[in-house]
């Protein structure tokens, strides 16, 4: 356990600058988007007042942070999309940097006097930690954005907004931060399964090199087919399918569990018996 925690800390430590850079970029872009949106709306109200001499409240709806998030959702989505892209790329790099980085770090890593499974689980946990830290940071940014918006907007023209509504005003957050925790669990569960399949494929490549690329792609393709099979073949989306919905979902869960177990087993087996430097 101690070795696992040490390795996990090492992985987090190696990525810390990139992680902080992503957090900083997200904060900067999103808060600027909110501030510019609020200032733009105030400017529009001032123009209306100057041209008509009437109070803006008579013509405009009260300023709302939720609406501001809705109107700036592109600028909210850009850093989120970029962070996702960086994490997907790093899911590969977390393995390959050990082989292709300076002084063949993988050699030292694999020679450690501890179980090799610790390396596997440390890398897996590290990626998941980065994902959830970024999600948590996004949640933290939402009330900060609301506070900035409230500081800029005139108090008498401000409509109170709820954080959950502001989050849901952005299309990307509907998937990343669904209202139901069960849905959150399903969405990120699928993400974890994809990560496990990716790790197994990378380790196949590291074990069998050129042939391993074929094995890895075949394994990933097979898992993807297996995962979508119930959706396509068991008639979940129409009313006359032979299986009841709960049975079809039980089959889906069993397949998902099978993919998880087989991917973890394959990854650990390859790391222990086949991977070479």
């Amino acid at each position, binding site marked *: 356990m101690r070795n696992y925690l040490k390795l996990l800390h090492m992985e987090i430590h190696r990525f810390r600058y990139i992680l902080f850079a992503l957090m900083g970029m997200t904060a900067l872009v999103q808060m600027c988007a909110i501030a510019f949106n609020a200032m733009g709306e105030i400017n529009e109200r001032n123009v209306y007042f100057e041209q008509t001499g009437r109070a803006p409240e008579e013509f405009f709806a009260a300023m709302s942070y939720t609406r501001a998030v809705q109107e700036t959702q592109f600028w909210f989505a850009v850093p989120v999309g970029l962070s996702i892209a960086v994490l997907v790329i790093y899911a590969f790099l977390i393995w390959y940097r050990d082989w292709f980085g300076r002084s063949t770090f993988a050699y030292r890593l694999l020679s450690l006097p501890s179980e090799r499974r610790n390396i596997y689980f440390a890398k897996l946990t590290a990626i998941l930690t980065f994902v959830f830290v970024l*999600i948590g940071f996004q949640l933290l940014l939402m009330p900060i954005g609301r506070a900035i918006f409230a500081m800029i907007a005139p108090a008498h023209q401000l409509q109170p907004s709820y954080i959950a509504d502001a989050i849901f005003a952005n299309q990307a957050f509907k998937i990343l931060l669904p209202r139901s925790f069960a849905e959150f669990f399903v969405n990120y569960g699928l993400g974890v399964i994809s990560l496990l399949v990716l790790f197994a494929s990378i380790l196949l490549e590291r074990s069998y090199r050129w042939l391993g690329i074929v094995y890895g792609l075949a394994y990933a393709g097979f898992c993807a087919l297996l995962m979508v099979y119930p959706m396509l073949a068991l008639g979940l989306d129409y009313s006359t399918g032979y299986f009841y919905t709960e049975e079809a979902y039980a089959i889906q869960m069993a397949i998902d569990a099978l993919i998880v177990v087989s991917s973890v087993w394959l990854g650990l087996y390859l790391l222990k018996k086949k991977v070479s430097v």
Partner: protein
Amino acid sequence: MKRYLLSMALGVFAVGSIGAYYASGTEGDAPRYKLTTLQGDAGEAAKMRLSGSYIGGVGSKMLELTVDGTKYQLTHSFYEKYLKDNRYLTSRYEDMKALKREHRDFMRARNNVDSFYKDSEWLIYADVMLYGPRGVYDWRTELKMDVLEEATGRVNKIRIALNVAKQVSWLRVEDVQRVGDEVHVLSQVRYRTGPTADGPSAVEFREYIVDLRTGELLREAVLVSEELAVSDSAGTGGALAAQSVTNEISLSSISSEVRSQPSEYVVLATSKNQQSVNEENREEIKQTRRFAVFSYRTGKLTPLPEPSPGLSAYSNIQSELNGELFTILYSDRGSLAIARYNVATGTQEQSELVLTAEQLGGQSIYNVSVAQNRVYVLLTAGTLNKTRISDGRQLVAVVLDAGSGEQLYKGEAAYDGPAEKADEFRKNLWLTNVNADRS
């Protein structure tokens, strides 16, 4: 330990922020409403469901209001979102849920609620299928019937090729009943009467009678037959020319409210929508609806007495068959009318009952529903303007006895929170539909 501070802090931060978000509730600005009883027995409203939206904040949120409180659709559980809706048959109807529990295998892949018949001895599912075509004239129709004997659990699969000597374009089962050893399958069939698909067509109610024991088709009968979509243009400008007339005819059946229950009768309805453009170039729609009772036992089709002339002016008509009582509910903004018939005798039970919105305690009727001898009414307390949103406060719901018109319950939707906010939230509740569970 100090060197691991970063990892520990990140882990705690991630778990803490996500946990706090979900623990604090994700409904956002979604106020709770309740149904306050103004008059009568709240138990009478137990099956009533009012649906609509909360329109405060940015966007709107769909909600359902019952005597138990408010339920927002945005927080559907995992079960409701992924497991419940795809098989509506065994998740929506109480009798179908019970059948699924009792006969899990028999109920697989069934999708037509009108195709079931159930009594203490037999469970029957009948469907009519349209196959083809391999060639233009190769349409085939088949009656598929699965009969489960409760005593033995044996399922007899009956397949009968139907000889419909017409170009069938659409058909479906409307009702299934058993009379002794005969199974009566009522189906609606639509077929072409001309050489092309877009040419004239007709629709009819057909009854297929099958021997329960041998699976033989004993006989079939056409109960009602109507030509469809007759267009007659008197002017030179086609359908929109002055005095042009378009007739749209449709057939429907009203079988027992709980579909799988045995019933000797079914009510057949023929609707005619006459759409015309008058000399002032204004479109006029005239709807007429005739009802007739069909007895499976006697094979007799008895037209129900014509309603009073005044009732044809109502824009909305709903009906239900409950045992031997057939109820027609007419409604529009100003009033509703209830006509009841005894299908066994083919006579009107009592004179038609007319109730105005004012008599019900509101200014106009927004939505109505009839179920299990009860009439559910959603009333608006204020007049509607063009936008409907700003003052469309249809918040009063009334439950009536369908026979006597007696008001059994009257309730009002109200904000379930601090009194000082009640008016504000009341304005943001927009109820649009009233329904009732049929269980």
